[in-house]
């Protein structure tokens, strides 16, 4: 009963708000792993993107990357490269591809795919360690990907 209700609510909001959205299964990557088209058609919000990059339960990008723009957040990791200047190194389309599924750019990379909802081995219900009780959703929503891309595009050296 409870589950059905949630599904219903998801279906309703999904239908209404995200009509123009490209779903995780429909994303078109080019040969180099970039995504030309915005996933939502709505411009990304860089300020919200910055929050997602730092937030443990969202992108948690700082777990693996250091970046000066978020120096006020303690403990940046060093598994991935420093993100300072990412907006110089990569075009918006390339950044979108990297955040959605970096494996399309860097084959076999350690970096997780944030816009993908199937093809996993023993996926769990977030960080509970339990099997999911509802269909999987991507770690970030389409608009959250756009927000992160907008933030990364602001990371310029000069």
């Amino acid at each position, binding site marked *: 009963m409870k589950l059905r209700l949630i599904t219903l609510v998801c279906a309703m909001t999904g239908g209404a708000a995200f009509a123009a959205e490209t779903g995780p299964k429909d994303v078109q990557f080019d040969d180099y792993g970039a995504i030309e088209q915005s996933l939502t058609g709505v411009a990304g919000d860089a300020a919200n993107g910055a929050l997602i990059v730092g937030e443990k339960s969202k992108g948690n990008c700082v777990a693996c990357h250091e970046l000066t723009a978020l120096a006020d957040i303690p403990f940046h990791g060093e598994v991935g490269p420093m993100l300072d200047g990412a907006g110089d190194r990569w075009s918006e389309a390339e950044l979108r591809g990297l955040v959605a599924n970096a494996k399309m750019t860097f*084959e076999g990379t350690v970096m997780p795919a944030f816009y993908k909802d199937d093809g*996993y*081995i023993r996926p769990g219900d977030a960080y509970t360690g339990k099997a999911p009780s509802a269909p999987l959703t991507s770690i970030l929503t389409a608009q959250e990907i756009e927000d992160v891309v907008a933030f990364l595009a602001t990371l310029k050296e000069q």
Partner: protein
Amino acid sequence: MNNKALAAVTAVLAFPALVAAGPDDDNLVINDELDMISVTEAPAHTENLDTIYSGWHFRTDETQALQIDDFDNPAMIFVDQAADLFETVDGAAEKSCASCHDGVESFEGLQASMPKVDAESGKLVVMEDLINKCRTDRMEADALKWSGADMQGLVALIGLQSRGIPMNVAIDGAAAPFWEQGKEMYYTRYGQLELSCANCHEENWGNMIRADHLSQGMINGFPTYRLKQAKLISRHNRFRGCIRDTRAETFAEGSDEFRALELYVASRGNGLSVETPAVRQ
């Protein structure tokens, strides 16, 4: 420059940083007298590492200090309690461990060869299995809960009898299929984050991941006392936590999957001294 080339450059650049941030070069000596092998050449079957390090080398000086003196080691409270439990009569057969085992010292060397294949059943067994077999079959008492204080206290007490002895688990013969199963798990990218044990503990040891300094994920010090949780942590509980953190459905403590993984992970540390009970953050 295409993306592949860029990736190659990134990888090369990342390497010196890894060395710089790596393990410290302190020597691990317990109680000023027991020299431990905490760094050594990797065994041939640990293909992608040249040198293996105890997790001790990746911890802060404060945490390290707690492990080098038994008076400071908070795990010893649980070991002492287990020593009492060893002498305590329990179960319908009205026996204690000590009724049959001539002192816990008689288990010297056992931990260094665990997990092992039980000749009778052909199953891979870990220390918790050996203890619970005696509890249920020989004492006619209840099995102890896998990660409970009583069980992990006994595992630590028995492990301590091998402290300083180099790990040397068998991976051939009857153990081979279990070892292969564990190895396959080690390289499987579980969960929604698609991360394998190797992604963190083989490719990125020495690096920081958020606030944690990644070690090689060795189990020669288990059960470890974790300051954060203020108790002894079992090997399987640690595996469960690491898999859970990849947004995956974990395996159960005491599952055959974790027994196999334990054998494989133990074998990666062959040559490191048993450090039970180690102290972690």
